């Protein structure tokens, strides 16, 4: 493996943002294929995900790795956009209506971006109609919905119902997450997947694509 690539992996795992961005720029100048760098990022996030699952890593490491991978992607994106190869998936992401919590969603955005997805972040307190409009316009592969509250988790179902009404449900994978959400709730509201954490979420999306 290219020494810089393995260094980059280490930087992402350790959350060393500045060094990771510097290394990425260096590699691009040297002519390293940008998608090769993306693959390395994804590998790094998988390592972090495994460590998180086993309890060796905590939210700190997960967030810092996500933020680092996202910054690297921000360097890569203009270069990737000039090439022919498409992003792994286009994801529309938001926290649902009535809920302005953005911490979980921000971590998901960072990790998904770092994992090589093209993420459209609609923000927080997003009405179902806005998600449907965005799906119509942007034609994404995935809709990812966050909710922290028991009073707003029902709005994830509302989005799914509105997608159905608009005839768009079958065109997208719907993944849901957030503190009160679990597999049973996801199944009941007709979501395709649920994830405990964003790295698991990225893995599930890849399996469903």
């Amino acid at each position, binding site marked *: 493996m290219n020494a810089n690539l393995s260094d980059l992996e280490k930087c992402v795992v350790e*959350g060393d*943002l500045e060094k990771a961005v510097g290394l990425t720029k260096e590699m691009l100048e040297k002519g390293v294929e940008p998608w090769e760098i993306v693959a390395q990022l994804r590998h790094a996030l998988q390592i972090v995900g495994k460590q*998180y699952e086993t*309890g060796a890593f*905590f*939210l*700190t490491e997960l*967030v*810092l790795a996500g*933020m680092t991978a996202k910054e690297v992607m921000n360097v890569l994106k203009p270069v990737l956009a000039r090439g022919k190869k498409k992003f792994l998936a286009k994801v529309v992401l938001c926290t649902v*209506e*009535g*809920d*302005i*919590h*953005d*911490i979980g969603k*921000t971590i998901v955005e960072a990790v998904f971006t770092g994992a090589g997805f093209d993420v459209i972040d609609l923000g*927080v*307190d997003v009405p179902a109609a806005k998600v449907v409009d965005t799906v119509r316009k942007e034609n994404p592969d995935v809709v990812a919905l966050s909710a922290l*509250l*028991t*009073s707003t988790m029902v709005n994830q179902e509302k989005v799914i119902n509105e997608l159905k009404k608009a005839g768009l449900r079958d065109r997208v994978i719907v993944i849901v997450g957030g*503190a*009160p959400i*679990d597999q049973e*709730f996801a199944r009941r509201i007709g979501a395709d997947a649920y994830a*405990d*954490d964003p790295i698991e979420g990225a893995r599930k999306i890849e399996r469903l694509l």
Partner: protein
Amino acid sequence: MLTSRERVMMAIQHKEPDVVPVDFGGMDCSGGIHALAYEKLAKHFGLDEEVRIYDPIQVLAEPSEFFLRKFGADVVSVLRSTPPTGLTEGDKQFKDYSLLGSNVKIPREIDITRGDDGSDYMHAWFSRDASKRSTVVAKRNPSACYFDHLPVYLPLKDVKKVSDIKELPPHHWIPERSDSGLRTLRKNAKWLHENTDYAIFGMSGAGIFEMTIYLLGFGNFFRSLKTNRKVVERVVELLLEHNKTELKRYLDAVGDYLQVVGIGGEDLGSQVGPFINPMDWRELFEPAIKELVDIIKSKTNCYVMIHSCGSIKPFVSDFIEMRIDIWNPVQISAKNMDPRELKKEFGDNMTFWGGGIDTQHVLPFASPQKVKDHVRELVEIFKPGGGFIFNQIHNVQPETPPENIVAMFEAVNEARGYRS
């Protein structure tokens, strides 16, 4: 039959009282009932009650004496302003607040303005520094049931070095009590102590760990933790300094009358695990929190409660070593928080104030029968040997049907007895 106060004290001393003590909205942290759920509950009983809010961020209602008696509650907060209370109208005044079509009452001093976007903005009305009182510290979007501070107010989110932190910014959860406010609190504490047999609870101040995150924001907190610890240390130092002063004033005012003192919200975990490595917490935060516990233990005979949400099992032994007597809210719905394991591992040395019902998955959504089965099972797990005060894993959420709240307390009353 024991008095409520005796019952609570016995439970904390790990002795079996006559029945498991119950807390319904008496512990003013996160074990209360949302105003909208309370309004529906009162209507369910045919009562036209004024809904008084004691916590404007979480929008929590003060239960009336009717419900304290109805549900067999044993605890009241020293903040209490509806009967039984030692406060008169002159001590605490309320004003109307419109919450999603309902009219509730909030303390008159709270400054909330309606923005052009239809959201409500809460200002730093509590600050001793008048120039800071216009600062927006929390926001309620038009369709939201709560005020939120995390997404809108992170006063130290951009600090990069210690010299950027000049002073502790105002924050809703960091008390800045006035002398007259403390005198009023003392009057209430004394009255409740002398005229009721409830156990009296008081929340003394802000948490150290949780507040560090609230001030820096998660992003800056995690970055600083890894690469710039001095920033974290400085925030902890400022919080400890402020908390120590406030805690001593608070205990001087009410310490003689309280049975339980809370040392603030110290949420250490998310739904799935600890926010940070427990080793880091032990190094950076535990010594500061221990100082606060030691102050309470040296100045009063009160028991000490820590509130810490989330999946936090690795920290509970530390709490015990720090001489913390009570842990709330015991979020059994989080990962690695099996109630049987918690009781087995920590039940001899830690009192569980909470863990009695899952408010994330069961209380708002299940049938009354399922609520009852769930509550009975948890009460049976936690009650042996004392060390358990019944309370939810968090606030009763706004959409909770009254029938489920009734079912919850019916099950508690059926299962709470120690001797048949």
